[in-house]
């Protein structure tokens, strides 16, 4: 399944300073659908370059990271259980505190 992954608010530094990634992700063995939870594991194992603790905590993203699916808060799309579809855009934004 073709997905666009985007990282912002400094998270891109964990991904070689690249903000936008076109990826091809398949559901893991025995699954028909790709959930956000499975995508997080895929990103950690295939895309993340450094400091996994700055991206994930337990099975989810670390506190302070907002996840968007097609520009909507993942809270509105089932969070970790949300099912992704071909050509979805998943965005990870670290909240900023500077001023």
């Amino acid at each position, binding site marked *: 399944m073709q997905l666009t992954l985007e990282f*912002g608010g*400094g998270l891109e530094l964990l991904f070689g300073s690249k903000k936008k990634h076109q990826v091809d992700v398949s559901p893991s063995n025995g699954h028909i659908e790709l959930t956000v939870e499975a995508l997080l594991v895929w990103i950690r194992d295939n895309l993340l370059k450094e400091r996994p603790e700055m991206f994930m905590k337990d099975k989810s993203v*670390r506190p302070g990271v*907002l996840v968007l699916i097609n520009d909507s*808060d993942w809270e509105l799309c089932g969070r970790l259980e949300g099912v992704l579809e071909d050509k979805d855009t998943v965005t990870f934004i670290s*909240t900023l505190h*500077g*001023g």
Partner: protein
Amino acid sequence: MADLSAELHKLRVENALLKKQVSLLTANGNLSQNPTAISSGGYAGDAAASAFPEEVQWIAGAGHSLSGLEIRRYSRQLLLPSFGVEAQQKLAKASVLVVGAGGLGSPVLLYLAASGVGCLGIMDPDSVELHNLHRQVIHSEALVGELKVKSAAATCLAINSSLRVQEYAFALEAANALEVISDYDIVVDASDNVATRYLISDACIVANKPLVSGAALGMDGQLTVYNHAQGPCYRCLFPTPPSQSACQRCADAGVLGVVPGIVGTFQALEVIKILTGVGEPFSERMLVFDALSTRIRTVNLRGRNPECAACGDNPQVDRRTLPEFDYEAFTSSPLCDAPPPRQQIVGEDQSITCRGYKEVREAHEAHLLLDVREQHEYAIAALPSSLNIPFSLLPQQRDAIVAAAEVTTSLGVKSLPVYVICRRGNDSQAAVNELRSFGLSAYDITGGFQSWVQDVDPNFPFF
């Protein structure tokens, strides 16, 4: 010449401060003057005056109480059909608390002062520093060293002398937050640290004030309106604070001056919209600004969370508990933008003070100075005769470092001691451990360039 212009600016600021005192003494005397009392100065209405009784030269069509002066001053806003006298009058009666007079607070205050908001509260404990000026455009060279609230108030009053300004030259704390915030109609979060952001949000929930929140770092900006029309609060979005290592500071990561300028200008816009009821406030949405690609996206956010500790159905934060709540413990970070404290990792036998290292240089002792800051930081200012290899590249540069430390003497090849320096003395310690695993005699220069400036060379342009 420079001295003269600085002196001139100081006099102007002093003049603005005196004007402010005068306006405070004559409060209520300026804003709501009887239109007939000042309408003799040749306003547009005068031409038709002869057809009417002499004492009535113009009337306020919609029963507003804007003076002739205010009408002329704000005419370009009054001409907006969606804005008009009604919205302008709401602004004149409104009060806004701006927490932080820095990169975000500067445009917020400038635009709100100019727009005709009645009262501005300015809160900031800091003084103006030289490295603020590239983005904190409300302050100027002549006022470096002055309290930011004083500098910001003077600039606002220079723009608009009818403004009332309240200065709070201290930080927002759990103990004072509700008392300060309850005096205002709306609050602007223009702060620079995560602990203050949770505190402001919670206090706005308890005091029932809408919150216009902005943030900027590097080339990125974010904007959200919280606690407005059933929308979420900061805690609904971020119930658990991020770890301190995930919170970058402008002082470390840098920020392009115009980025907080853009976000702060958006904040001023949202304040004006909420105060006047004009337009659609930016609630339940977040604006994400990427300066590098000049891309602005708005994303849809969740609504208020019934489980939220602050604004949920059974809140733990209330008028009684908030003043006692320890926001620094909750977020593991201070209620200010201070750098995280340096941790001592390596032993004393693997450390040297900055003064000690200065003696090594002065005695011309053979050694290698390894600067492990990032390349762009090294490019700003460095010590002569140093080798720059960023901390993250140490493993792959192992052979190069070992070779650089080697000297050939009559007794054969030996390794020189390696002194390691960084910005504040944290990475350099981790580097010492790594270099020792390469078999090198590595020593940490305690406290890095921050200490070097304090203890050895105040002229080194620490940044």
